């Protein structure tokens, strides 16, 4: 079945998830995408190559650093979270948590349900 990318609503989500995953250890692009898919049970979907511009943007901002490493005969670019990236993750996570709570609240409709 063809993959259907999520709409623009997803803007910022890959960045948040990448920063979260890099908190645990350094990872390379393919590893990050597979981890995002596994953790989100394939709900979050995008062209896998799209992860690299996000990583480059984070690197330009100083949120991650990269280094090329030879592992099992394959050369890969590994990304590591910086202190700045850690702070950025906390800000983003707070914003998304607030947003998710607000959306949940609207979906439940608890405030106005009794008035109907």
């Amino acid at each position, binding site marked *: 079945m063809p993959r259907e990318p999520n709409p623009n609503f997803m803007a910022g989500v890959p960045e948040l998830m990448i920063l979260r995953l890099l908190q645990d250890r350094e990872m390379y*692009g393919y590893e990050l995408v597979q981890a995002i898919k596994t953790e989100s049970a394939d709900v979050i979907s995008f*062209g*896998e190559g799209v992860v*690299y*511009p996000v990583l480059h*943007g984070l690197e330009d901002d100083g949120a991650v650093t990269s280094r090329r490493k030879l592992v099992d005969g394959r050369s*890969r670019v590994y990304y590591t979270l910086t202190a700045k990236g850690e702070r950025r993750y906390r800000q983003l996570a707070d914003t998304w948590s607030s947003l998710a709570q607000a959306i949940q609240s609207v979906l439940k409709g608890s405030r106005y349900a009794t008035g109907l």
Partner: protein
Amino acid sequence: MQPGFDSLRERLLRAGIAPRRVHRYLAELREHLADLTERERASGLDPRQAGERAMSLLGGDAELAKAMIDKGCGRSLAARAPWAVFVMSPLFLLVAALALNSMLMFRLLWPMQGLTPGEMPESYRALIDLSGVITNYLLGAVLSLGCIAVALRQRLESGWVWLGLGLIAVLTGLLGFHVHEYPAVPGHKAAVSYSLAEVIYWHERASLAASLGVGALRAVVLFSVAGIAYHMVRLRLVPDRR
């Protein structure tokens, strides 16, 4: 999309992404594609199917290009500030080259004071001639070549490129390095002098009009050759702009 990502490369370069960034992005995509293909092969698909499936998972040309372009990172200086690359940089390099040459000449000619031109050592004369050829003929060509190389490498279609080539032609045409030897004549001392513009003699007198004319001719020749070369290579690299 082609396996070599040729069309994606073209899209990104034309969007002003720096060649170094494009190179890195494509290298990472190739490595990612190799991992995906390997995984699909391991899942039992034949090589062709595995390749197609991997390409589909990686993302299409448009999606991959949009992700990089929208991110706004990695734009080249030539795309962000073409005036700096094609006008200011050649100007700065020209001034720096002439300043360096002037310092060298000053150091070389200082001990020659008081000597007649005939007394100047041959090695000095050869060095001065070489320096003259470099600043008068090669400097303009090298700067133009650099300007063209940057523009072509980044697929730039900017008027700034033509302005840069024009500026280089005019400045290197009019400016240059010349050592004049004045032999001893009755009533005058022998001398060696240095100037930043070619002095043309007309009926044994220095003529400003002739100097400007020769300078303009050199500028026209350099601009024409550089412009034609740029145009021809650009048509080969970017055929749809024909």
